[in-house]
């Protein structure tokens, strides 16, 4: 086997320029794919992190039908305290759950006594909410990173539009479940930066205050946001919770709750899928580059060495060994392309991080992209390149091994 490698490597060195060009082409392809996969993967992970850790949580539980009408924030589809207690019991008993936060969502009128506008509000238990969506505090650009009763966190666009400042008194007026209207004064304790996605421009009040505005004797719950200990176990956790909450039924024996992962709640999931599709096609392009370049170079190699093939076949080299000789040449080209491409790709990613790429996403500005190269991606791309290199060498190698020595020796 070592001799097959020796002959293959020397044959590659024999045609230096061609080998260099082919290896360079593969290397460029690998670098391009790695940088693309790294940047898009990091962008995706970062945006998913922003969405789940500052607003949505990893998954949510709602009363059945709530998500379908979520644009209206229907109060009649909230969970009563007894129903929420059942959900809380399930969540407490689920080891995958790191934290969960009940929210009472409602729409209302926001007034600074001069002007009035609409606002969507989340009534929360601040400690539980900050544990479930830890990046929420980082969105508080002005003010305290806490929320007490009688205080409100308002989105920055609202603050700018109505010229509301920290410490100002504002009024929230909301329609209650029975159709009556109620209002309550709040002190603005913080200004929230906007985030892209559902809930990215919502305000926050204490859940007890929300219940007071809505004249609820006990705070009802519109949704329960959940944070998992291990985000990568999301699909398993969703299935597990679906099974568990399916056991919680109403008087008619029907299941009361439904579980939604962030993917079902945020439109960014479609962008994430698009990124995955683009990455897939970029990998296909890499496969095409490797396939065409190696096939081309190996066809040339076989054509140029017909007499040599005839000679080694005549002196008794078995067809399998002749085949291996050419496959190993392709394999070596793939290895060189994968290793050099991997090293250069890593270097480019390092440079990208040193330079620091900043970008805006929706209302979020100046986000710093930290490109990271997942070892699995490096391994996958290398395996693809080497596998395709070997596959591309197969046809020329089989052709070489099937040559009749007498005809090959006659070749001029």
């Amino acid at each position: 086997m070592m001799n097959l490698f020796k002959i293959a490597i020397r044959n590659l060195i024999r045609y230096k320029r061609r080998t260099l060009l082919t290896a360079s082409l593969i290397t460029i392809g690998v670098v391009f794919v790695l940088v693309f996969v790294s940047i898009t993967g990091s962008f995706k992970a970062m945006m998913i992190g922003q969405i789940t850790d500052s607003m949505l949580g990893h998954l949510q539980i709602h009363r059945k039908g709530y998500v379908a009408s979520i644009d209206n924030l229907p109060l009649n589809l909230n969970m009563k305290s007894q129903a929420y207690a059942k959900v809380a019991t399930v969540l407490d008993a689920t080891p995958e759950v790191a934290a969960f936060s009940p929210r009472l969502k409602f729409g209302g009128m926001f007034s600074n006594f001069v002007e009035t506008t609409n606002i969507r509000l989340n009534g929360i238990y601040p400690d539980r909410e900050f544990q479930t969506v830890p990046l929420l505090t980082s969105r508080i650009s002005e003010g305290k990173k806490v929320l007490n009763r009688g205080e409100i966190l308002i989105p920055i666009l609202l603050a700018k539009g109505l010229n509301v400042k920290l410490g100002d008194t504002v009024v929230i007026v909301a329609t209650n479940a029975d159709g009556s209207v109620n209002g309550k004064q709040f002190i603005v304790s913080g200004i929230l930066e906007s985030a892209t996605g559902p809930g990215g421009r919502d305000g926050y009040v204490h859940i007890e205050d929300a219940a007071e505005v809505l004249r609820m004797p006990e705070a009802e719950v519109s949704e329960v946001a959940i944070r998992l200990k291990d985000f990568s176990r999301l699909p398993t956790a969703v299935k597990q919770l679906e099974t568990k909450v399916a056991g919680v039924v109403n008087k008619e024996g029907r299941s009361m709750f439904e579980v939604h992962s962030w993917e079902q709640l945020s439109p960014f999931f479609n962008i994430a899928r698009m990124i995955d599709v683009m990455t897939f096609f970029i990998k296909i392009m890499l496969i095409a580059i490797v396939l065409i370049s190696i096939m081309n170079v190996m066809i040339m190699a076989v054509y140029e060495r017909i007499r040599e093939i005839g000679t080694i076949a005549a002196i008794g080299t078995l067809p399998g060994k002749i085949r291996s000789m050419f496959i190993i040449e392709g394999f070596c080209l793939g290895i060189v392309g994968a290793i050099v491409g991997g090293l250069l790709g890593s270097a480019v990613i390092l440079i990208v991080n040193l330079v620091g790429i900043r970008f805006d996403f929706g209302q979020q500005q100046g986000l710093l992209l930290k490109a990271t190269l997942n070892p699995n991606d490096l391994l996958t791309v290398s395996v693809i390149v080497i596998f395709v290199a070997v596959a591309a060498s197969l046809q020329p190698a089989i052709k070489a091994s099937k040559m009749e020595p007498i005809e090959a020796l006659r070749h001029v």
Partner: protein
Amino acid sequence: MALIKAQNITKDYQTEDVVVHALQEVDFEIEPASFVSFVGPSGSGKTTILNLIGCLDKPSAGNLRIADTDVINLGRKESAAFRGKYLGFIFQDFNLIPVLTVYENIEYPLIMVQNIAPQERRERISRMLAAVDMTDQAHKYPHQISGGQKQRVAIARALVTNPALVLADEPTANLDSQTAYAVIGLMKKMRDDFGTTFIFSTHDTKIVGEAEVIFRLEDGRLVGKETKGGTKS
């Protein structure tokens, strides 16, 4: 017992609408350790007969036994294995592998064809290099040595596997006359030293004289056999 026994060997080539009779009902026997030449003008069938003996081609009709093996019925892989075990080849254009050194070219069939152990390999190659007087050129590549030296390396490569038979198709065609004689002389010496049968083809009348058994071919027919020492048939 004859090393090669050919009976009624016929070889036809079909080229479009024309059938070319390359060999017609050729019979001959070749004894072990003989130094044989097939001679004749171009198109007489010399290369065809060497290709058949070399198991590189199959006759259209007739029987051919080499080393007591019916080589006509060997499959593709069996033919390759037979060549690797019993035959050595010397080509007109030397056909050394350009990416391997002189040493590695001689070593090639021992590794890739016969799978000989390293120690024995080294001994055999050293012996062959000394026999063809190429020891001091062992680490040169084919493009760094002369035509005569290349053919000496080719002889060493053909003999290093201890074949029963070495086939050489016009081995001196690309060499000047002095080198050609030297190469034929070396082949004869090798026959004497190793007892290997040599069969070569040539159209050079001076070189023919070096052979001990001469088969004359004309238009695909064997028209005469001369044995050094005077026997003619």
